[in-house]
């Protein structure tokens, strides 16, 4: 086998920060290569250099044995390198075929003076035929005339892959391709990738999900802190544990250690028939009902965009609710504003920590009391007591292991994702809430911090707090929760005991294939307590 792409001592610096240091990597034609590493390890930087989005500070890049320098993705595509980004680069208002041909449209050609002259208007008929043929050839199950805004996430990803196949690339790079897919779609994708490999394409897949790597990769390269740690073949000697150790540099617990303490009997937080509508008057939350007991974590699973965001907004008092009640220990708290909810003893960890959780330009000490700033001792008759604020901050930063460099009270914008999340956790957990509503607690957070955050959440549970955890990461939901509810199109489609759940079964409910009756969901509710 020939080497299709090779890097020699590739280095990328952003100012003083070295994102990639001396990376030398060889990828064989026709293999599936997985590149794994923690968030922020430099995987994406490396791939962006292979795709011409970033240019290396030093080092060489060889494609099929020839040194190349790519100024833009266009150069990469011309060489035969294509990339599917984690956040899809699609235009929602255009149709499937328009998105696929984007940038490489076919125009009518006219003959004038005996020569072919490219015309002005797009030849939509020819384009449609070509794309239909392409879809049929790879069996991609798409309708070319659908608008991209109306199709599922899995279908959008297929559009992205086709976009690259239409450009006839030989090397396909996929950045975190499974992050947004349900388990069935993941299986489907992996089958497609293996089929593409058989048809002669080379595939690089960037991910931090070890199971999927084990399922499809031929070789696995591990990157940690900007450096290539090593490349191992995917065989029986390579285990998830050994890979994780290579990624983190120390042994990690891949499973969360849950205590045996059973969930309580008393219902502390209850949502009853909650319904909310979006801007088109469509029901975005449809008759949602569930209860959380003392000492219990309820996990909310589902593909993103099925109402989880809105559920969190509605429960934190940031969105109007059309119908239904939210009860805390029997008292209706639906329609209260966030500060009132906080005073009732509810803590929030919002989905987007930078939009709703923190003020980036403010210091840690101010962020760590945000929402409680009008309380004593931080504030006395409207005058802030910054000494108390700072003292509180110093204490919590230590207690919750927020890692700081020289500056002891920097603005939150300077912190890494994991440390920023710890600031929010410190703020919410230190108030000892009776109910805790958590959304995407570990998104964009490194493995070490994930372990810490999970342990903190479970410690809160054991102290009696009723907790809801929304996450798009199924293994996170399953690891933390006592009970799992599944959301699909704004409804609850299923309810499971966490220790009995099987992922492919969950996937059927997440994709709306299966739907429990109300009674079954009710019975599932009893689950966590037995």
């Amino acid at each position, binding site marked *: 086998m020939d080497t299709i792409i090779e890097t020699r001592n590739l280095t990328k610096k952003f100012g003083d920060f070295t994102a990639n240091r001396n990376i030398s990597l060889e990828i064989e034609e026709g293999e599936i290569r997985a590149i794994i590493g923690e968030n922020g390890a430099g995987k994406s930087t490396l791939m962006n250099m292979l795709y011409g989005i970033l240019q290396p500070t030093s080092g060489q890049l060889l494609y099929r044995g020839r040194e190349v320098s790519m100024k*833009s*993705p*266009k150069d990469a*595509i011309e060489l035969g390198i294509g*990339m599917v*980004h984690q*956040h*899809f*680069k*699609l*235009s*929602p*208002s*255009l149709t499937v075929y*328009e*998105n696929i041909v*984007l*940038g*490489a*449209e076919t*125009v009518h050609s006219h003959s004038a003076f005996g020569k072919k002259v490219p015309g*002005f*208007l*797009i030849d939509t008929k020819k384009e449609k035929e070509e794309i239909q043929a392409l879809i049929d050839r790879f069996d991609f199950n798409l309708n070319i005339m659908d608008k991209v805004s109306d199709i599922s996430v899995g279908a959008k990803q297929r559009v992205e892959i086709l*976009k690259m196949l239409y450009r006839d690339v030989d090397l396909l790079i996929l950045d975190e391709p499974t992050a947004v897919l349900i388990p069935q779609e993941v299986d489907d994708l992996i089958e497609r990738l293996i089929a593409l490999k058989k048809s002669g394409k080379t595939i690089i897949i960037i991910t931090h999900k070890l199971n999927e790597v084990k399922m499809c990769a031929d070789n696995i390269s591990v990157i940690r802190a900007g450096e290539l740690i090593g490349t191992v073949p995917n065989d029986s000697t390579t285990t998830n544990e050994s890979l994780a150790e290579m990624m983190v540099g120390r042994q990690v617990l891949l499973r969360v250690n849950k205590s045996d303490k059973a969930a309580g009997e008393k219902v502390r937080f209850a949502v009853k028939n909650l319904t*909310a*509508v*979006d*801007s*088109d*008057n469509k029901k975005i939350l449809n008759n949602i009902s569930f209860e959380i007991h003392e000492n219990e974590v309820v996990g909310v699973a589902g593909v993103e965009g099925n109402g989880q965001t809105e559920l969190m*907004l509605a429960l934190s*008092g*940031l*969105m*109007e609710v059309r119908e239904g009640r939210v009860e805390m220990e029997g008292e209706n708290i639906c329609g209260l*504003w966030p500060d009132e909810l906080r005073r009732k003893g509810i803590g929030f960890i919002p989905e987007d920590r930078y939009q709703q959780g923190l003020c980036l330009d403010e210091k840690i000490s101010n962020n760590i009391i945000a929402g409680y700033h009008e309380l004593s001792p931080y504030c006395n008759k409207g005058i802030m007591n910054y000494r108390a604020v700072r003292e509180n901050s110093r204490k919590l930063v230590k207690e919750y292991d927020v890692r700081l460099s020289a500056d002891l009270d920097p603005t939150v914008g300077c912190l890494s994702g994991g440390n920023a999340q710890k600031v929010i956790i410190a703020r919410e957990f230190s108030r000892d809430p009776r109910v805790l509503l958590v959304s995407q607690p570990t998104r964009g957070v490194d493995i070490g911090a994930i372990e810490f955050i999970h342990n903190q959440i479970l410690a809160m549970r054991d102290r009696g707090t009723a907790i809801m955890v929304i996450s798009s990461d199924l293994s996170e939901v399953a690891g933390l929760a006592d009970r799992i509810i599944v959301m699909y199109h704004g409804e609850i489609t299923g309810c499971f005991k966490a220790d009995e759940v099987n992922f492919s079964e969950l996937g059927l409910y997440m994709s709306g294939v299966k739907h429990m009756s109300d009674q079954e969901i009710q019975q599932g509710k009893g689950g966590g307590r037995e």
Partner: protein
Amino acid sequence: MNINLILNLLKMTVEASTPYLLITIGGVFVARAGVFNISLEGCTEFAAFAGILFGFLSGSILVGVLSAFLVAIALNIVFYLFTVKWNADLTVIGCAVNLLAACIPACLLQALFGTRSNLVATSLIDPMKMKVDVPILRSVPVLNSIFNHQTRITYLTFALVIFLIILMYRTKFGIYVRVTGENIGAAKSVGVKTNRIKLLCLLISAVTCALAGLNLSVEELGIYTINMTANRGFICLSAINCGRKEPHRACVYAVIFGFARALQTILNNYVPVAISSLIGILPYVTIIVALLIVEIPNARKNHLRIFRGA
């Protein structure tokens, strides 16, 4: 009601809609490419001024027309450099252009001609001769009274609107403009040069603004007066907004605003002076009403809570 009066109103509507249509259709491209450009107003004002000033100084209408285009294009290139290339704030730069347009003409008029109100070039330009007689229309009764004897730029506007709508929806360039505004990452990832797309959109808008300015000063009056654009640029911004950045819809709103302007002009002849200045607000009231009609349902749709009511 007198049939002639209605025909006259419609004819005036066509006449008054011309600058609105021009500024709107060019502005739609800029807006669609994701650049919020509030300097349409200033650009039009500069073109109107340049057309008369250089025409008057050189004694040639053609020189005036060419310099109006050059000034508008130069202005939008500067706008491009500051906002797109160097990432300056769109509103600040747009505001700066509008402020310049409010003071540079007055300053130059004072320096060159010792007046601060207007520059009359009727010695060079006879507005009556600017109207074109289209023989084919003569035999068609109603259309003749409405569409015949309009200016060249008015006829050009009809062609331009159709051409630009086709450009937006049926060509590569149009698709790139739409994608650039909707998801700039998508455009970049397939090698579309988004900065160039934005520049081209700004150039289109420069040309249409220049035509609008020329229509106002050179074609209609042969006179430049201070603040001649009279907020048409801002009115067109709301036409673009009301039409949700779609060229055909935005053009419908542009014509509605043109109709309001024509109505105001006609009504002026029938009311006492005191009231006529009150009627002057008619085009602006139309905007507010149109914006309310379009935006209230949008505001109602928002279910996110931002402010706590009483």
